[in-house]
């Protein structure tokens, strides 16, 4: 069985937010909920780096460990999904997650958050594949159709990779080999000289 992973190649990401848009559009994600986001460190400074981040589908998922109603489960593909019918919107998964992946449709007084929503690796949830209920609650199930997550599929620079961890690692390793040696021997400085 495949072990699904995301990898964002920070040397390629150009912060176009195409992945964010693809995700929102594909799954009709409500306003205020962002299953994926792009973060840029040193924004505007030469050498700035961007990373697209969403649920990383951890092997030992902290969200799952702290959930009071135990609503998370890991698929055979290593994708971490959750059951919105069980979720009570307590916010614990958000406190525990290193990546800030869990999202809530509401954030109101008396701890009203609504059902948690997060990246599903385009694999939906517990209801039947691509049933109306699944699309409504979790978005489209591309994995069931033999497709990979749309964010990675639509990445303009192929910075964001999604798929079987071994294959993703192979692609990334090949890139590193082609780039050769140290990071400063290619990229901006090599292309445009240091003082440009």
């Amino acid at each position, binding site marked *: 069985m495949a072990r699904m992973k995301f990898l964002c190649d920070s040397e390629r990401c150009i912060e176009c937010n195409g992945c964010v848009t693809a995700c929102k559009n594909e799954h009709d994600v409500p306003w205020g909920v962002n299953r994926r986001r792009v973060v840029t460190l*040193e924004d505007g400074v030469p050498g700035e780096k961007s990373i697209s981040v969403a649920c990383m589908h951890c092997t030992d998922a*902290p969200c799952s460990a702290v959930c009071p109603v135990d609503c998370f489960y890991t698929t055979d593909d290593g994708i971490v999904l959750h059951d919105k019918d069980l979720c009570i919107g307590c916010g614990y998964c958000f406190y525990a997650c290193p990546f800030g992946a869990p999202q809530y449709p509401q954030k109101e007084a008396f701890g009203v958050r609504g059902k948690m929503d997060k990246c599903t690796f385009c694999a939906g949830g517990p209801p039947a594949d691509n049933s109306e209920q699944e699309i409504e609650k979790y978005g489209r199930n591309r994995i069931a159709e033999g497709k990979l997550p749309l964010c990675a599929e639509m990445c303009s620079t192929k910075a964001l990779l999604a798929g079987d961890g071994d294959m993703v690692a192979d692609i990334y390793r090949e890139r590193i080999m082609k780039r050769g040696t140290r990071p400063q021997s290619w990229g901006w400085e090599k292309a445009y000289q240091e003082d440009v």
Partner: protein
Amino acid sequence: MSESQARGKPAKLSRRVKAMLWSMLVIAVGAMVAPLAGYVYAASAQAQEQKAEEANPRAEYWREVRQGTAGYTAVTGQETGVLVQSGGQVWREVRNGPVTTLGAIMVVGMIVALVVFQVTKGGAKLEHRTGRTVLRWPMFDRVLHWYTAILFIILAITGLSLLWGRYALIPIMGAEGFAAWANFAKPVHDYLALFFTAGLVVMVVKWFKHNVFEAQDRQWFKQLGGFFDGSHPPAGFCNAGEKAYYWLLVVGGFAIVASGFFLLFPNLGFEREAMQIANVVHGIGSLVVITAVCAHIYLGTLGSEGALEGMVSGEVDEGWAKQHHNLWLDEVKKHGQAHGEGESSGRSAPASA
């Protein structure tokens, strides 16, 4: 022969001495210089290290990510610029670890200890029922007590459901059944918290005057309240144990209410770190107070015969008062008469007299 020998000897000797002196000098200088090579090595290693650092700006980048440095993101919201926050892992370890397990050991341990005490030693019997009663808890105090007590029990059950339900209730109720209960318990807990806070605050203010530690309280602690030797240390309206319980409620109650405030209002902009700390404080505070409440419930019912009457009818038997709160009874008698029925005398007597 002898001459040349005599000439050759000193010449040889001086050459030897010279060689010796030179070699000693070389050794001495060598001994001083050789260790200095360490500096050369260190300097070159440092230079190399510096080079290595310069050579990998990516390491810096990932270090920043790991330390939770916030970057820019087009996505609005709180902490969206943070790629990795490490606090969650600590919170997970603490909450799923000691708070859950030690909390269970503490609460269950207290219940077991109380059962063992009741079975082996038994609660304090009312030694002499006189039939005459004195007013201990006026109507307002009784209503306040039961109002706060009932809310506390509801909050404890709903709160503990979220902490232990996954281990204790899901195996019994099933995932769906427990989720249905938790979905009900969470809002109940969240909204009733406000009413409980009101009760707790009024209680703490209203009963403050009974709970200031006095000289005789030292004696009570020395005799361990007389629980084990059956003695009756002197006590006023509240004995030292009750006062300790009161102050535990003040401190623990404050911790619970303050931390609960954070957890209750995510809309006020508290970040994850605040929520993690608040959750742990809320858990520890609640578990300590729940443990104390278990002891309180026992001592108010089985643990002390005649005590519950005071919180139900408001009147306690004079015999009970003499046994457990002799100084208070003396005071009541000084100010007014104990009586068979009615609520005209007792603690409130001085005001009405």
